């Protein structure tokens, strides 16, 4: 029992990591896009859990809201819209790429792994800075908010234009083309 309490964080982390990995494998392995999407949802949620362990509560909330709530719904919506399941499965060109891709992936992982090995022993700082606003301790959400609106105002504004562009793009790409003229 004490062991359980002492290692509680680790146990949670390993469980979340297992879920995240299983989800990621599922994305690649499932043939049905719906299953793949649900599997990805598992990864998203598990990653959100890791964010909490990493003292990034605000990010965890954003992850759940934006990914699980927004992006995932969008995915499922499109899958339903295009009736992806009805599309016949033709001989797979890409299947021949699998050995090469897996081999290269392993190689890439090994190389990057070598790279990060040395840097990765790091233990956390006390974490106070992650919830500090103008020298006073507050919550993580406030801290991120302050930083976002004060120090990172410029990229924040640019990202808002990115969202506008995404909206235009989704409309431009998604609207039905009614003959010549392309009326909206």
């Amino acid at each position, binding site marked *: 029992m004490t062991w359980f309490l002492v290692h509680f964080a680790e146990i949670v982390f390993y469980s979340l990591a297992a879920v995240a990995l299983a989800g990621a494998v599922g994305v690649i392995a499932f043939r049905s896009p719906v299953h793949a999407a649900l599997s990805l949802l598992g990864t998203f949620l598990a990653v959100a859990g890791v964010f909490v362990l990493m003292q990034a509560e605000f990010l965890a909330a954003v992850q759940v809201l934006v990914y699980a709530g927004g992006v995932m719904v969008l995915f499922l919506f499109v899958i339903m819209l295009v009736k992806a399941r009805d599309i016949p499965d033709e001989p797979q*060109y*890409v299947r*021949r*790429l699998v050995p*090469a*891709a897996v081999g*290269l*992936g392993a*190689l*890439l992982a090994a*190389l*990057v792994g*070598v*790279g990060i090995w040395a840097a990765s022993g790091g233990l956390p700082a006390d974490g106070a800075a992650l919830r500090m606003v103008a020298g006073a301790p507050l919550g993580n959400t406030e801290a991120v908010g302050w930083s976002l609106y004060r120090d990172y105002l410029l990229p924040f504004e640019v990202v808002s234009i990115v969202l506008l562009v995404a909206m235009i793009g989704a409309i431009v790409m998604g609207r039905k083309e009614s003959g010549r003229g392309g009326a909206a």
Partner: protein
Amino acid sequence: MKDLLWLIPLFPLLGAAVNGLVGNRRGWSRRTTSAVALTGSGLALAAALAAIADWAASVGTAAVHVNRVFTWIPAGFGHTTDGLLANLTIDFALRIDALSAVMLFFVTFVGFLIHVYSVGYMHGEGERPYARYFAYLNLFMFAMLTLVLGANLAVMFVGWEGVGLCSYLLIGFFFEKDWCASAGKKAFIVNRIGDFGFLLAIFWTVKVFGTVDFAALQAAIESDPARFAAAATPIALLLFVGAVGKSAQLPLYVWLPDAMAGPTPVSALIHAATMVTAGVYMVARTNFIFRLSPTAMLVVAVVGGLTAVFAATIGLAQNDIKKVLAYSTVSQLGYMFLAAGAGAFSAGMFHVFTHAFFKACLFLGAGSVIHACSGNQDMRTMGGLKKHMPTTYWTFLVATLALAGVPPLAGFFSKDEILAKVFAAGSGDLYGFGTVYLLLWALGLAGAFMTAFYMFRLVHTTFHGEFRGTHEQAHHLHESPKSMTVPLQILAAGSIAAGFLGMGMFGPKLNWFEGLLHPVAAPVEIEGHHVGVGVEWLLIALSVGVALSGIWLATRWYFGPEAFARPQRFAERFPGLVTTVANKYYVDEAYDATVVAGTMKLARGSWEFDARVVDGAVNGARHLTVATSFFSGLFDLNVVDGLVNLVAAAYGWASRGLRRVQWGVAQGYALVMTVGFVLMVAAALWLGR
């Protein structure tokens, strides 16, 4: 006028623009087109003569006069401290001195004559091709004059590229014929190899000297020769690579014989008189760099000497009238480089000068003959043309005698000057390579014999004996119009007179030409050595004897009732030798048999490899299509021959190979990129270890 040098190239440029942009589109009559073109080149000639006169009268022929038209490339990195680049400024500057004045004179003079000649020669073309032709010809004049007048390497390079482009356009002028187009391509690719050397030489010069201006370079070198000695060899050799390409020397000579596919006046102007001599001019122009490097000088001499003999032997057995002249040109260019390599830059330039007259005359005469024979170029079906076209015959004979080196015609003086200088270099043990120079001298003498032989073989087969062509052709034989014969007569007169400008063998005082060039291109002095008067006369006798014996042998073999019997017997006795020479030593075929076949094998091998490893992904049909196009490419390659085609094929092969990575599917691209990620990360880790 000497301050308005830029006008000289401007006139032909305007002519080209008017004919090319307006005349070609509107379909102007031939008369209007020729008027525009002749005005362009005529004004260039007039302006050139005025400039030369003004320069000689006001500052003297020993002076260098430079016009800075505008600052072309300003002190680009002026604020930086990056070495010499900090001060690099390149003006668009033109320069007149003895060397460029000589070139200027004969380029505009011969150029104008050939424009006149072309009016007659091209009259059978349609209006639009006619306008196109004259636009290109004028454009060529512009580029050549820029090359000649350029006061620094960069401006010279502008002209250098320009003449290459025009040559390419004009060789391919009769583009309906496939072989014309492929000849143009061949000329272009080989020239590019040379230009590559030239461009690298420019960069190297910038790095070492911080300037590309001829005067500044010369001043820098003369102030401290020892400091630049080490850099001189690579720069000189790279420059020489450019010269080898442009002037068709071994091993890049292959394009010039093929370039005869162009209209004959073009062969006369570009591929005999002017553009191909640009290499010699460039070596003479930069002689202050070359003379610093004995290695480079020796390379120049050896390449020149070998080319002179090698091309002459091929010329012995050609049957196409223009091919004989083409190999002869390659061979004569070899003599010019031989002279330059022996340190006698002015002797080389003198041969450039005289050669321009008699070789242009020969080509134009050949054009006149081809014109009369309804386009036939094979000498075996000619003969007896003397009585049909007397003017062409006599002018051709004069030019032939000049080329063969019969005194007192122009070629005798210039060629003898070269051989004497090479002998002097040999006996004086120049740079310690005396033996090599003596060997080259002997080769040059042998080449002179062959020159006399193949030229008289040409004259006898073409003009003497009975006509051997068809009845229709015989009926058609006629003398060419005035616009063609008058230029021939003028050039023949030049072939007689030009030599008297440089009678070096009768004493240095009579060598006016060398005296003229001395301030800018002095010969390399061989210390403590002087060829005695007796020896000089012996050399003269030797070279005249060699020329006469060549003529004698050709006459014995190809003239009179016994004509052709002896060469027949000779061929029967030495069949291998004769066919080998007639087939240009099988150089092209050898490339095909060894390198091309090897490449094919390799290609096939890698094809299979590809097919198994990478190509598992690509479906069969696509594979087949690509493979078919590839092998049809190889088929082309076997039909057309030569080194250049090999290079082109190798590129084509590589090109198709690389393009196969682009197989159309995004996942495949993702995989290629993943390979890139792996390589980059691995390299970064390895580099930073």
